[in-house]
């Protein structure tokens, strides 16, 4: 049986304390003077938007990264955690967001790999089953990982941590891949840990979960610690404000344009699941009118990637009659053909998807206009025309260039994003499909990009915007729908929607007024 951790030394001081942790990658400061502490027996939330620096901190605490400056204290003593094995020896266990499992190996083998050597398989197996019984998390030790569901894989990760008898369990966005039922099961397991005296560091950006589960929260924003608060008495909007700054307040809603022409329509799009980590899209219907921005909100991992690649045409089903542009069926057209029909696309990932980092801006300008003949004649590239086009985009969209026609990789995130956005908008597409247009860019660039999108809509284009940033959704969408578990809710005018209602839909309550999970 596991020994009672309640009796361990630190009743008074914190279990883990971080003081002034700073870590940068090149010019990007991922953690900037982060300080806070975690106590035994508490479930502590680390809260922040995508890219706020949560994962970086967690990697430092688990020894995967070393801080540039700053110090960690474990039970009051300064420690340099020089690797995961060291972290585990101290009593820090971690369940990763993307599991660190070996899918060719069995559950038992996966667990054995994380354990110190010396234990026989038989004794390990019996400990696995006793732990699974204790917390009610069952998995077959002989199953191979590739045959397990995502929820089951997470349980393997958790059991693997628990067997090492940790004092602190770090969970990096554990619910992003779980069904509501699985989430509820996970929470009851975590509560039992805390009752047994374990500390849990729970990383998330989902406010409801944090309020339901944790007792204290530390909030990160753009790498900085904006404060640690007791959860009791906090409202979602208070936490949200800490998380995203005061910008969420009183966002003016866009008024839907007067009844206008239907430009883009998706009818009952179905896309089957392709791997354990992908989502099935069911019955997705979108109708975007000229002059409006159709916002699709939702928490990461609910089918955004799958939907985006279907809208771009990177993935195509075999049925026609699913997607229409201004009445023309584009269901079976590839991305280049869709661009000929005057669609534009801005995917979420700039590096390697929207742009080729190792190529110049001129070549990147060609990437999405080669099917629109002006830059290619009889298969031959018009190099000066490409350069001129890139220059024009840079000029119109305020892209600051370190030199004439630089490599895409030499641009900062914000500048490259302005280029990628400008590249599509300059073509004045009838329909623009955008995902996370301001993800990871600075405030100035974000304002510029949103302005440009509103201007394009005002000129009569239809825009479909997928975003996980609620504030962005509310700031520029005319109508809003919510994607949850591969299902898209009915769209409603932005003016009719409250953050609470959208939040409920994001949490999976479809029927209006239906009970929450």
């Amino acid at each position, binding site marked *: 049986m596991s020994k009672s951790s309640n009796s361990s030394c630190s009743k008074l001081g914190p279990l883990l304390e971080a003081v002034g942790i700073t870590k940068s990658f090149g010019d990007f400061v991922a953690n900037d003077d982060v300080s806070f502490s975690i106590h035994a027996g508490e479930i502590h939330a680390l809260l922040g938007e995508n890219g706020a620096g949560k994962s970086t901190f967690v990697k430092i605490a688990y020894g995967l990264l070393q801080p540039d400056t700053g110090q960690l204290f474990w039970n009051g003593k300064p420690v340099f955690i020089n690797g995961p*094995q060291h972290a585990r020896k101290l009593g820090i266990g971690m369940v990763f967001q993307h*599991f*660190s499992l*070996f*899918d*060719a190996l069995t559950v038992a083998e996966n667990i*054995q*790999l994380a354990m110190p*050597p010396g234990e026989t398989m038989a004794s390990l197996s019996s400990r696995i089953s006793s732990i699974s019984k204790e917390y009610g998390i069952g998995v077959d030790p002989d199953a191979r990982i590739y045959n397990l569901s995502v929820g089951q894989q997470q349980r393997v990760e958790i059991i693997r941590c628990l067997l090492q008898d940790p004092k602190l369990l770090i969970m990096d966005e554990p619910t992003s891949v779980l069904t509501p039922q699985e989430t509820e099961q996970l929470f009851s397991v975590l509560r039992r840990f805390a009752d047994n005296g374990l500390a849990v560091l729970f990383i998330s950006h989902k406010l409801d979960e944090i309020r339901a589960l944790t007792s204290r929260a530390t909030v990160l924003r753009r790498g900085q610690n904006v404060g640690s608060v007791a959860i009791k008495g906090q409202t979602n909007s208070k936490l949200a404000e800490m998380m995203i700054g005061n910008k969420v307040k009183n966002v003016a809603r866009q008024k839907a344009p007067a009844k206008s022409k239907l430009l883009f329509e998706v009818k009952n799009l179905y896309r089957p699941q392709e791997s354990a980590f992908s989502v099935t899209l069911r019955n997705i219907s979108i109708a975007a009118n000229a002059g409006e921005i159709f916002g699709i909100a939702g928490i990461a991992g609910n089918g955004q990637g799958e939907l985006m690649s279907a809208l771009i045409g990177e993935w195509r089903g075999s049925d026609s009659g699913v997607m229409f542009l201004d009445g023309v069926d584009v269901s079976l057209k590839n991305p280049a053909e869709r661009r000929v029909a005057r669609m534009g696309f801005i995917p979420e990932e700039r590096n390697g998807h929207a742009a080729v980092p190792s190529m110049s801006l001129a070549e990147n300008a060609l990437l999405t206009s080669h099917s629109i003949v002006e830059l290619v004649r009889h298969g031959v590239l018009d190099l000066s025309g490409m350069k001129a086009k890139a220059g024009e985009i840079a000029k119109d969209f305020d892209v600051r260039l370190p030199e004439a026609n630089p490599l895409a990789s030499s641009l900062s995130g914000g500048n490259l994003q302005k280029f990628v956005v400008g590249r599509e908008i300059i073509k004045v597409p009838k329909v623009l499909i955008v995902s996370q247009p301001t993800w990871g860019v600075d405030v100035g660039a974000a304002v510029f990009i949103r302005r440009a999108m509103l201007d394009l809509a005002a000129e009569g284009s239809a825009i479909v915007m997928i975003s996980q940033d609620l504030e962005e959704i509310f700031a520029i969408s005319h109508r809003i729908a919510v994607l949850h578990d591969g299902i898209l809710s009915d769209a409603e005018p932005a003016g009719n929607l409250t953050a609470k209602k959208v939040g409920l839909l994001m949490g999976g309550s479809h029927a209006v007024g239906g009970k929450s999970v």
Partner: protein
Amino acid sequence: MEALILTVLLTSVPLIFAATGELVAERSGVLNLGVEGMMLMGAVSAFAATSIFGNPYMGILAGALAGAMTAAVFSLFALGLATNQVATGLALTIFGSGLSGLVGAPYVGGTVDGLPNLAIPILVDVPIIGNLLFNHDIMAYLSIGVLMLVAWFLNRTRAGLVLRAVGNSHDSAHALGYRVLLVRFGAVSFGGLMAGLGGAYLPLMLTPHWSEGMTAGRGWIALALVVFASWIPSRILIGALLFGGITIMQLAGQARGWTVPSQMLSMLPYIATIIVLVLIARNRDFALANSPACLGRLFISNK
């Protein structure tokens, strides 16, 4: 007939060595196409050491060492500097063929005494199979021993589990704190050692002289064999006997005037390997469970 079977067994020994070594390297996620080069270095070193010391056992030692050292060159580039494994492996083969030719130039035309046969008492007297199976040189016994050892190591020991884990997902292994490059260095070195032994067997047993390029493509056959065995050690034995048997069959066939051209027989290992590749690719479960997912992929720890 007995002579024929004996030749088949002997021909398969170098294949078993080289393929077993390569299997371990590939299971750790490293595709080393330099087997032919490592075998040649093993062969020339074994021959040279045997001529110098007059003792074939020194030859075995020298062959193994030379193979491991040649593999270290591969490790230096493909692991240390994360160069492309395919190209680095090819470079190793080209380099090994060249260097072995250079080292071996003074030895062309010489001969050495091969390894003595060590009959296993009592067993060797068993009728029919006794002489076939229990009257061989030490390396023939060793090849089977090593193969069994590797099978046991991969499936029954913790270190073997770590090695498979590294080949399955180096990122996960890294996240758990395993030293990916160290494990791979070990696996590649073992692969080199084995290839060196396989090479050494040629001048010590099969043809008691040295000539440049004397491995005659056996390194490539060993690579094919690993795939043919779908990364399962026990199948190496079957494959090696099969591939070795084909080599002998064409010689025997020529002597007896068979109508099937010998070249067509020689093609069989390669064609069989391609067919196995297709079958593996089509069987998702099997591919996931047995083929090292990280094979040939670069691992860079600090992105």
